[in-house]
């Protein structure tokens, strides 16, 4: 419209409403091309994502999740597996237990009590275990996968592997600490 050289600027039309007049200026070129540009973009975008084979949101999500899964497996392969004996030394390592305590206070104390004495969740300081045998590997598994039907969330997606180890070390180390207001034993006696 406005590329017509015959377009005259600031022509006052014979419209008048309560004293308001109107000019008949052409549409600004940059505005018009912005409008056309967005329409062209919209058209191409629509074609691409409807018939042009553009990746769907779900396709995108699955690809990313798969990438994460592959990366996880790669790291697991590269990381030497600690054997049970190595793991069982951790509860005696004060630095690891201190790190575990920190994670425990932030995430677990609400349900298990600040000293592991139990609350919403079971007492962690006695010899009785509901899931597993109270050894490092079984405590780690419970933390990682949770026990959903009992309300223990799975913490695997939240904690790093070394945090889970430290946390388990802290919990195993709690045994026999005999805190005040301890919750009654639940589960089976696995001995000390």
């Amino acid at each position, binding site marked *: *419209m406005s590329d017509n050289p015959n377009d005259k600027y600031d022509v*006052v*039309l014979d*419209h008048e*409403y*309560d*004293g*308001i*007049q*109107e*000019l*008949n*200026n*052409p*549409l*600004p070129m940059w*505005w*018009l091309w*912005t*409008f056309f540009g*967005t*329409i062209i*973009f*919209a058209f191409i*975008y*629509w074609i691409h*994502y*409807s018939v042009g084979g553009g990746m*769907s*949101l*779900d396709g*995108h*999500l699955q690809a*990313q*999740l798969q*990438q*994460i*899964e592959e*990366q*996880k497996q790669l*790291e697991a392969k590269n990381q030497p597996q600690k054997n049970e004996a190595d793991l069982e030394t951790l509860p005696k390592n004060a630095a690891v237990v201190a790190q575990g305590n920190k994670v425990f206070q*932030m*995430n677990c104390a*609400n*349900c298990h009590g600040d000293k592991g004495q139990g*609350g*919403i*969740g079971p007492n962690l300081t006695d010899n009785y275990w509901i899931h597993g045998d109270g050894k490092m590997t079984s405590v780690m598994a419970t933390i990682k996968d949770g026990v*959903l*039907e*009992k*309300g223990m*969330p799975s913490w695997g*997606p*939240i*904690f*790093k592997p070394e945090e889970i180890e430290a946390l388990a070390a802290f919990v195993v180390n709690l045994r026999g600490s005999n805190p005040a207001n301890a919750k009654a034993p639940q589960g089976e006696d696995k001995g000390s």
Partner: protein
Amino acid sequence: MERKLEKFFYDDNIVKMFIMATLFWGGAAFLVGLIIALQLAYWPLNLNLDFLTFSRLRPLHTNAAIFAFAGNAIFAGIYHSSQRLLKTRLFSDFLTKLHFWGWQTIILAALITLPLGFTQGKEYAELEWPIDLMITIIWVVFAVNFFGTIARRREQHLYVAIWFYIATIVTVAMLHVVNSIEIPVSFLQSYPVYAGVQDALVQWWYGHNAVAFFLTTPFLGLMYYYIPKAVNRPIYSYRLSIVHFWALVFIYIWAGPHHLLYTALPEWSQTLGMIFSVMLWAPSWGGMINGLLTLRGAWHLLRTEPIVQFLIAAVTFYGMATFEGPLLSIKSVSALGHYTDWIIGHVHGGALGWNGFLAFGMIYYLVPRLWGADGMYSKKLMSYHLWIALTGILLYYISMVSAGITQGLMWRAISPTGQMTYPDFVQTVNAIRPLYWVRVFGGLLFITGYFIGIYNIWKTIAMGKKVSPVEQQAYALTFKDDSNENAHRKLEGLGTVFTVLVLVSVIVGSVIEILPTLSIHKHLPQDEQILPYTALEQLGRDVYVTEGCYVCHSQMIRTYTPDVIRFGPSSTIAESMYDHPFQWGSKRTGPDLARVGGKYPDLWHYRHMVDPRSMNNQSIMPAYGWLETKKADFYSLRKKLSVLRTLGVPYTDEQVSQADIWAEKQAEEVAAQLEKDGAPAGLKDKKIVALIAYLQCLGKKAKTGTDTSKWNNFPFKKVAGGEQ
């Protein structure tokens, strides 16, 4: 033909009344906004009172800002300018008064019912069915009065401001009626006929276009009258008016699904919402250009005239907001910004900057004229209002955009092995709490400006001399032959045809987007379908809606990696197929709840509801202590389930006729377990038990799931050896 000179008076009294209402309700909306901003920064201000809790007050704030403040401002401006642009008095003095008092009654009803928890749980459409009916009636009164005025006009052609008013009236009527189709279950409760994804789509078609046709088109109309009047310059381009008006009206209606990007809404619909939002950029800016360039030759007024400053600042904010809107509608940008405070910043740029400043500019223009004063009492105070409020808006906007982007980035911070950098949701809330205080300060400045304005207006009115209505003269309308004019000019002389064309423009996009979704649940494969809520769960869901949990918690895990890692598999269409209303939410001040079922023990929920800090010491959630003392209304369930069944939820006859027993039995079991685990006795008939039952079933209603509760199979078949 001889033209007859006619004499008449304008009705300016109604304009004064609507201005007073605007100022009064505006103050209320701003104050409630300040209170809820404080509650987010400092949770103890929820005061443990149900009717003052954030989730009850936030809907009151949004409704007051939109329908009370902006609404009354629109009516004042439309009634003032239309009489002058059409050269006639308003159609009916009776309808005018009915419109005013009816609208104020609606606002009053909202003010009472929303804090008491009577809500439909749909944003900006929370008001319950009797109030919805009142809104419909009063809107029809407004429409009859307005179109009657057009019919009696003494001006052949309709000016661009009138076009925008027409678009407002017909489209808001359509949006309100379609989105409010609901079936009452009691005097102040109803269920919408739509469920899940349908409800989401209809709601955001409504919600987005409430912004378009309640907060944009009427204000553009006001701009087209008050800017040229204030600066005494002609409109920059009539051609631009035509192009941007029709483009805006046609395109805007399609953009709703941009509120639902990455959700369970079918992707083609999301894509339509996005591309139409992008195409909306230029038509929106057409209005801004016409507003700003009308000042050519009068730019000096921007240095000296606060009214002009208000109007131009408003148009500038309009330009900013309508650039940011399309930007946020791009899928990948929405992935970051959705559910965060960025959106809150965006709407306040529009509401405070565009609507607020335009309303104040218009009011400053009108008050001296209507109350017979020679200009406002103090120009200096107007300037103070402008600059203090402007600083306030900028602080508000910048703090909320920063908060939104910060939190959005924290949510998506994930290591290559899928480890979240900030796994605890509350960490991401804590990071932005200082910005909540900046927002409070910004809001405080905006309100300070408002009070300066009130003082100035009060002094101006006190200064005014009594004005007696001025007799107007105009020739009776005789249609001049305009066949040599262009087609649009001819159309401007045909009010009815014009209105019909506007209606057609807004219906096209609506039908194409909404119609296919209405049958979507029928086409779901059997094995993807879910079980309806048990009676107790449904009762808990009603508690969830009443308390306004959706204000801070979404129930929609997006098809988006960080969402899936944090909250679990993305939500499906089937999972909300029995949700009347949908509760997908639009903001995550707390975590998503779509799969919270079974994540924590019942006792955790009990303690968390009564005192959130006992389960997460950094939580900013209000305590909902009254849920453990207030009784749940089991008896209402028969009616509720029977209504839900007529809406397509597959309850059996026995389930409906024994709904209260069904709920009571399940409640007894939940309460007994709670008591055994350490909660107080006697919770079985309390709201908290119903709410816990509801929360614990979220994400677990799949028919093929392994973890389905026996309560889904009520009534239990008698088998040998007692109950199943």
